[in-house]
């Protein structure tokens, strides 16, 4: 299973390096989201800076939807699932590989967004360890749920609208916990983030486990 996961993740990341779609499209999209939030809520930094954490994570959530859609779009369009099923790969491995590749891309995105939030909203980046931990745990949870719902939606004609509808409500706890953890870190009180980080870790572990079990059956459905 793990070998297949590494193989699939490597393949997805190599495709990304070649095509640079996430970098060229999802990145600017995330940046645009930050800018639009700034327009909507700003320009007073007194308003924006405290809201940085929440706006950051909303941008991440929306970017996850795009990243997941891209992850499945590379699988030869309409024949996506056929190709994956014929490949002879272990479905749990495919899940971990795809989710892993999405997670890596998101982390890179988050690095950029962090800088963006500091620049645009005037957030003071303190508590770096907590910021990073929240990103790591939160991203894993997002990638897992996204990849799971992504395979459900990939075979359907209404996939573009169905995926956000299914995905976003379920990851609401990630948004909440990650925002709170970031709030604590940015406010200079990283100790208060502990419980929220626990929530993120539990969520990630839970949905990675669900994904390993459920991905195979979901892939099979014609």
């Amino acid at each position, binding site marked *: 299973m793990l070998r297949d996961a590494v193989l699939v993740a490597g393949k997805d990341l190599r495709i990304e390096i070649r095509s640079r779609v996430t970098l060229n499209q999802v990145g600017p999209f995330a940046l645009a989201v930050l800018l639009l939030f700034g327009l909507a809520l700003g320009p007073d930094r007194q308003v924006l800076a405290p809201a940085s954490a929440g706006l950051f994570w909303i941008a991440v959530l929306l970017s996850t939807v795009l990243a997941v859609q891209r992850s499945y779009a590379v699988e030869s369009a309409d024949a996506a699932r056929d190709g994956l099923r014929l490949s002879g790969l272990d479905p749990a491995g495919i899940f971990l590989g795809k989710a892993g590749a999405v997670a890596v891309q998101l982390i890179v995105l988050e690095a950029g967004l962090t800088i963006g939030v500091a620049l645009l909203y005037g957030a003071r980046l303190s508590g770096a360890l907590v910021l990073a931990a929240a990103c790591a745990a939160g991203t894993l949870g997002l990638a897992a749920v996204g990849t799971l719902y992504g395979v*459900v939606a990939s075979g359907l004609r209404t996939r573009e609208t169905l995926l956000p509808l299914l995905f976003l409500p379920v990851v*609401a706890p990630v948004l909440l916990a990650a925002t*709170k953890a970031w709030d604590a870190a940015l406010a200079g009180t990283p100790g208060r983030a502990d419980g929220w980080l626990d929530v993120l870790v*539990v969520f990630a572990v839970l949905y990675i486990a669900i994904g390993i079990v*459920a991905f195979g059956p979901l892939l099979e*459905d014609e």
Partner: protein
Amino acid sequence: MSRAQFSPPADRAGFALRLLGATALVGVAATVWLGLFVTPPDRFMGNLVRLLYVHPPMAWVAFLAYGVAGLASLLYLWPRTTAPHFDRLAGASAEVGVVFTGLTLVSGSIWGRPTWGAWWVWDPLLTTTALLFVLYLGYLALRRVPGDFHVRARRSAIAALIAFVDVPIVYFSVDWWRSLHQAPTITAGRTYVHGSMAWTLLLGFVSFTLVYIWLMAHRYRLAKLNEFEDAEGLEVALAERRAEAVTG
């Protein structure tokens, strides 16, 4: 894997079902009458307390339906029987559940307006209910995608469980979030329920549960009828397909 053989259910609701419906209707009517006219206004909340007879029962049904849908989805998948009645149960429960969830949100909002001056407060229970509403809608959207019965059933069941597991996490997170801010919750300022109020409340819970069961029974029957129609259609389709070979 064997396909369930569908036998056509009775076209008209049985006597027991109609009795149930009548009872439920009477119960709800009684609750409303008692709630509006007979029970006294509360010392603190005044006439607003009358919503108490309706809102918690509706919330209860919303979450009961959610629980039933989740359990049915699990049972559909787990012993690998893929029995169709579990899928029908899950779908029916979700449809009834979403209606009650909507009603809960509306009644909660109505209660909140005079109490806290806002149409919406981020109370843990209300927020979780709102999220439940959206999760229901997503699940129902997924069920509406056409396809083979068992394919759709399995896909919906897995999606239901993914969402089912999420709700406790949501509630816990929001609850903790709120406790950090010491904001008003619906459960704060609990009023002392006694006498006729207690009975009316109990009646409310019971009658709304009966309504749920009655709606479920009908929706379930409807689902069964639909499937029977589909199964018949398959025989026709098979015959037509084979005829292609002859007539080209």
